[in-house]
């Protein structure tokens, strides 16, 4: 039996105190640094688990379990538990890539989809990569129109437009998409990267005409440039990019640059500064389809909507233009990016393409940034890929298939969640009852149930740090049985009083370790290799349940049970 003295002694031991002190510090850090809450939680959990596994001390094992339970409960409170759309309601559209891609390409695809979704006004869309060959697009609410919009974004290409001094010099339909390629290093002639492409006869003629005499002018390259629109930018957004320049850019200069970047014959996007128009609001839309781009949450947004504008709210980052200014050549001063209106790049025209002679092949090149050679090479690669994607109208670098859509109405999802949680509680109760009938000993049943409950809590916190979907929930429920199973092995082994208890515990652990290994190995290919994201949640919770048991709760139960049977 555990005596009071032993308990107090155990609590006073230095390791135990250290574990609890560590837990408290981890909790405080989670609370103080909310954005990093999840990593802090996971790392702390791992550290405690490792410490308790390597230091073979019974009181430490029990303390580690308690500490992890505390930590997990705190994480649920502080970081929250994320539920998939099965439980929170919404739409999920999986996108399957024809072939696996590396992380750079994946990042690029996710950002392309986000950019394009934003240009459709879909700002609440969540886009997240799943493994190396799938992307989830999730919408918090479901309407057929929204779903259709997302599908449009994914299946259709955007419109590329190149503008020189307020005139369209080139469009995506004039570029042979198959001719867009990265310039090999030996032909770069000093630049760090280059993308080359061929245009049609009509494109060549038009470009020659528009670019005539515009040497050093920027070629403003847009993806899905909004038509019939205005943009309302605030003072700090206007000047944020200006402050990053070596040569200071005055407010007047910044205004001049954004105005010229937004100029297009017959379809200027007029730029307003929020602070200038706030007090004396007199803007009137040209017609009922005029769009107004504005920082999300800006007080001016409702006024614009009231005035009859079609308001598109954009994040501060998207609303912030960046500039390039060179005192030596003022004509090449330009706004280089302004995502809110689809301005993604602004290369400078070299003199040779501005002489009025139709030219079929073009190359855009430039320098790369970075501290090391590798960083510069990566930057060059990224710039080339971004540019290729832009010229192809935001086309994704690999072919995609739209997977099976799942739509869950929010009230139904909440009801599913409620019932599932009741189901877990019910399963815990039923399994406890069975164990109680089998062993008829509260001293055995109580710790068993506490440990099963602890495991469910830990799994909720860990998987909930990412996403709990239906499959993961089923796995968590199954973990109750798995958790009790291993404890049954320990208990039955200890009930045989033939040898000393340490040896019997060892025997039980040999069996448990073996079965955990086999169970994990059977699930591992599904978890790591299959890419079947629809059921990866299940594999994750099954494997996690087994591992948690092996490293944390079984040792703790062993330590408790050994004393109970003495």
């Amino acid at each position, binding site marked *: 039996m555990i005596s009071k003295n032993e308990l107090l002694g155990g609590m006073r031991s230095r390791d135990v105190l250290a574990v609890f002190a560590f837990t408290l510090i981890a909790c405080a850090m989670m609370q103080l640094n909310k954005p990093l809450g999840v990593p802090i939680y996971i790392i702390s959990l791992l550290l405690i688990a490792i410490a308790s596994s390597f230091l*073979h001390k019974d009181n430490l094992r029990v303390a580690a379990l308690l500490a992890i339970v505390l930590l997990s409960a705190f994480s649920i409170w502080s970081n929250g538990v994320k539920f998939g759309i*099965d439980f929170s309601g919404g739409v999920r559209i999986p996108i*399957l890539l024809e072939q696996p891609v590396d992380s750079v390409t994946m990042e690029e695809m996710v950002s392309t989809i986000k950019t394009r979704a934003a240009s459709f006004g879909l700002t609440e869309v969540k886009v997240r990569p799943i493994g190396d060959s799938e992307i989830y697009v999730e919408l918090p609410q479901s309407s057929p129109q929204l779903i259709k919009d997302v599908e449009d974004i994914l*299946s*259709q290409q955007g419109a590329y437009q190149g503008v020189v001094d307020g005139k369209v010099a080139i469009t995506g339909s*004039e*570029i*042979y*998409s*198959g*001719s867009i390629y990265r310039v090999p290093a030996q032909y770069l002639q000093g630049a760090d990267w280059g993308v080359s492409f*061929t245009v049609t006869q009509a494109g060549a003629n038009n470009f020659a005409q528009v670019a005539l005499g515009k040497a050093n002018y920027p070629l403003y390259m847009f993806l899905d440039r909004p038509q019939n629109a205005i943009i309302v930018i605030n003072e700090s957004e206007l000047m944020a990019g200006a402050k990053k320049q070596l040569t200071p850019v005055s407010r007047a200069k910044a205004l001049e640059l954004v105005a010229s970047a937004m100029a297009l014959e017959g379809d200027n996007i007029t730029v307003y500064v929020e602070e200038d128009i706030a007090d004396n609001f007199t803007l009137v839309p040209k017609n009922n389809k005029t769009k107004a781009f504005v920082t999300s949450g800006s007080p001016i947004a409702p006024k614009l909507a009231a005035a009859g504008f079609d308001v598109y709210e954009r994040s501060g980052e998207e609303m912030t233009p960046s500039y390039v200014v060179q005192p030596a050549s003022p004509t090449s001063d330009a706004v280089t990016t302004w995502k809110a209106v689809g301005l993604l790049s602004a290369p400078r025209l070299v003199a040779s393409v501005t002489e009025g002679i139709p030219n*079929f*092949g073009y190359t855009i090149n430039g320098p790369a940034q970075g501290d090391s050679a590798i960083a510069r090479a990566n930057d060059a690669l990224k710039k080339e890929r971004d540019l290729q994607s832009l010229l192809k109208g935001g086309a994704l670098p690999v*072919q995609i*298939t739209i*997977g*099976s*859509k*799942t*739509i*869950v109405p929010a009230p*139904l999802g909440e*009801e599913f969640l409620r019932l*599932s949680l009741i*189901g877990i509680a019910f*399963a815990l109760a*039923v*399994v406890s009852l069975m164990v109680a009938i089998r062993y008829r000993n509260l001293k055995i049943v109580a710790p068993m149930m506490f440990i099963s409950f602890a495991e469910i809590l830990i799994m909720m916190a860990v998987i909930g740090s990412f996403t709990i979907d*239906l*499959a993961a929930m*089923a796995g968590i429920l*199954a973990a109750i*049985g798995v958790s009790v*199973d291993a404890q*049954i*092995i320990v208990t*039955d082994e200890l009930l*045989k009083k033939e040898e000393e208890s340490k040896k019997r515990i*060892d025997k039980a652990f*040999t*069996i448990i*370790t*073996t*079965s955990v*290994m*086999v*169970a994990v*190995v*059977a*699930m*591992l290919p*599904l978890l790591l290799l*299959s890419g*079947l994201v*629809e*059921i990866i949640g*299940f*594999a994750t919770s099954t494997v996690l349940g087994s591992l948690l048991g*092996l490293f944390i709760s079984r040792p703790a139960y062993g330590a408790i049970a050994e004393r109970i049977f003495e």
Partner: protein
Amino acid sequence: MAFEIPNPYRGNYKLLIIIPLLLVLCSLFIIFLNPQTQIKKGVDFKGGTLITMQANQSVDTQALTAALTKKGFAVSSAKSLQNPKGYEIEVEIERDENLTRAEELKTSFFAQVDEVSRLEADASVPNASSDAISAYAAAKAGIDETSNGIFAIANLPQNAGSVNGTNALKAKVNAAYRGITDENAARLADALSGVVTYESASFNEVSSSLSEKFLEKATSTVLYSTVLVCIVVFLIFKTFVPSAAVLIGAGADVIIALGAMGLFGIPLTLASFAALLMLVGFSLDTDVLLTMRVIKRKEGDARGRAYEAMKTGLTMSMALMLSFICLFILASLTHINTYYEISAVAIAGLVGDVFATWFLNAVILLRHVEKGGHTGESEKGVVSSLFSS
């Protein structure tokens, strides 16, 4: 002890093997020979559309089937079930052949178009060689044919040859494909709304290429799992007969679970597939317990040790089964297919496991030990000693 089961290994225990063998044979008959009970593939593996609608009232599924059939859809199943927020109407329709064909053509078009566009660029520059021009013409003729295939399905004039340039053709093909899918969706919505007034509808659409991908990945996952599990089991037990017995037990269990899937009409979906993999783990759990206790221990005789293992094993199976029964009850309240498929497969497999472990694996193992094959070796396996205290 609350319940005492007689020791089945006293007496002529060899006869016990008949029960699991019969179960396995029945299961094999169910899966392979009887066409009515063959395992149904769910939409994940078969392709098709699973429509789940949430409605306030129940729906006459026959009328729904008739309405869909009239609009040209092949209905594989239609169900109307009560759930916490009213009724869930679930209809499964087969993949439309035109859609499948259009999808294939579109994939093939986009696989070729970049290359053709590059040839077009080469052919369009001033002073292009005649080789470049004829190469482009040949390539363009190829994708024109593919495009015309899509136009035909979309009921559009098959005039790809007169479309100038790949960029324009690409736009037309995209529009035509979109037209095909839109028409299909509109026709489907039309057929549904005539019969059901639904609050929300979820279309789980699995194209044939997607279902093929699922099937391929599932197959490779099974292969990897099997190989890994075999390696681990042999590493742990190091001798042939016990390892083989453990694997035969697990194999029999999976076959029995598959038989139950055929018998009770549980479809093979990604969820039930995951449950089958989990079952391998559960099944090996009791097999490992049995083998460890019988082979690597010395107390009493082998039959006694097998019997003791059985008592522990049955308690374990009971605990697992109870958790999955809870999940099954949850599934019947909510009609969440994922829950239903996982719990049903797990329950069937756990029942099968009782027979496969204690009547099949145990018998093979006891025969092996009593013939003097192997007993009383050191307690620890190679790898497991790393973890034990």
